[in-house]
């Protein structure tokens, strides 16, 4: 890593990356989740993209670029040793059949019950859903990575989703630029305050109720770089 200070997005992605374990098969959503791959060093964490590739890696240089090798966000990617290609039905069979360990997704809202809304905005035409609903029902663990608030400064961690929910399946973890929440016994637990954030900021910008974990830690400032 360079000496440059991470942006908020990068910080979130880096924290999410630290959740991944050896042999995990991981699907990354569009946006902040896509950045997670950058912070994974292990060659035994395997990235799956629903358009039909297991073993996605970051492009190491321009020469590796192949227009026929993209991720779900249609961005060019590389392939690691041991990668494989398959059709979309097989790819979603992997997802729905619970063969993907972790999905890291962005969201518009996440609520007290653990539901997320990340595919549609009320009042607008619903013109796209992509793989979000399938990932929600199928992945063993769902980590939501998002800014804590939207562009208007409103909390995205709401009492109850006002946007259409993506699934009735509850998510397991939320990572924002301010905090990390984990879902335990049907409740949100604040387990970490992110570096450069304060507990007060988390309180001020979180709409849903949560418990504060006994082991609450301020994340190591080293994460910033």
């Amino acid at each position, binding site marked *: 890593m360079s000496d440059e200070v991470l942006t908020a997005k990068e910080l979130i992605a880096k924290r999410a990356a630290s959740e991944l374990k050896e042999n995990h098969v991981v699907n990354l959503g569009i946006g902040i989740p896509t950045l997670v791959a950058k912070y994974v060093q292990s060659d035994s964490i395997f990235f799956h*993209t*629903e*358009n*039909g*590739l297991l073993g996605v890696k970051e492009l190491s240089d321009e020469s590796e*670029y*192949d*227009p*026929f*090798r*993209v991720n779900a966000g*249609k961005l060019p990617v590389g*392939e690691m040793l041991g990668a494989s*290609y*398959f*059709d*979309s*039905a097989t*790819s*979603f*069979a992997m*997802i*729905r059949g619970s063969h993907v360990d972790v999905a890291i997704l962005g969201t518009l809202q996440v609520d007290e019950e653990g539901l997320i809304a990340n595919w*549609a905005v009320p009042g607008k*035409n*619903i*013109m*796209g*859903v*992509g*793989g*979000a*609903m*399938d990932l*929600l*029902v*199928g992945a063993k663990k769902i980590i939501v990575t998002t800014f804590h608030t939207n562009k208007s400064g409103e909390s995205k961690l709401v009492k109850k989703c006002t946007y*259409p*929910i*993506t*699934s*009735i399946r509850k998510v397991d973890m939320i990572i924002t630029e301010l905090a990390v929440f984990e879902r335990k016994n049907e409740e949100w637990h604040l387990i970490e305050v992110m570096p450069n954030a304060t507990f007060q900021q988390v309180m001020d910008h979180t709409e849903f109720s949560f418990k504060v974990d006994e082991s609450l830690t301020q994340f190591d400032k080293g994460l910033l770089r």
Partner: protein
Amino acid sequence: MMGKILEARKALEKIQSGQTLMVGGFGLVGAPLTLIDELTQLDVYNLTIISNNLGEAGKGLGILLRQGKIKKAIGSYFTSNREVGDAYNKGEIDIQLLPQGTFAESIRAGGAGLGGYYTRTGVDTELSKGKEIREINGVRYLFEPALTADVALIKAHKADKLGNLTYYKTGRNFNPIMATAAKYVIAEVDEIVDTGALSPEEIVTPHLFVNAIVLSKKILTKEGVVTR
């Protein structure tokens, strides 16, 4: 056995107004660009298009949309072409939006001769409205009917002269399943090789699914889409 190798125009003669077409590709990747280009030049209307997306504004299947040839579109991600929403608002086209996994699975089910299936995806969301929900072993599932088409336009990498196909990287996507789900399947390919040149173990789409083979003229390269 050169019978299946045709010019694009000849292969597309099968297509008639009112038919349902499947078109492969995830964005430009794995889309049958030559066939789509030719399709926009046909005098056919009231088409139902089953494709993950409808190109971009004025590009690919987006041209067909502008031409007013599309009656209905079934897919999972039309957001890539803002004109789809506009056409829908004007009542010009009907839209059926499916989660991408459901979209893929329904096509596979159609090709496999099934009537429909039960998936957990979408249960109790906006996309399950009006659909049957059934509990199986204590879990709620949504009924989804199979999708089939009159004609499928797909993109493969290599074809042998019998019509056996292989694919290249993420260009595979919806193509192999669409090859199974239409009455007449036209495969656009980068290369036509002799029968026997593909190993029996590496063939992804066996020839019994393929009716016509067309050599690609418009191809996706590092420099974008070029005509060769």
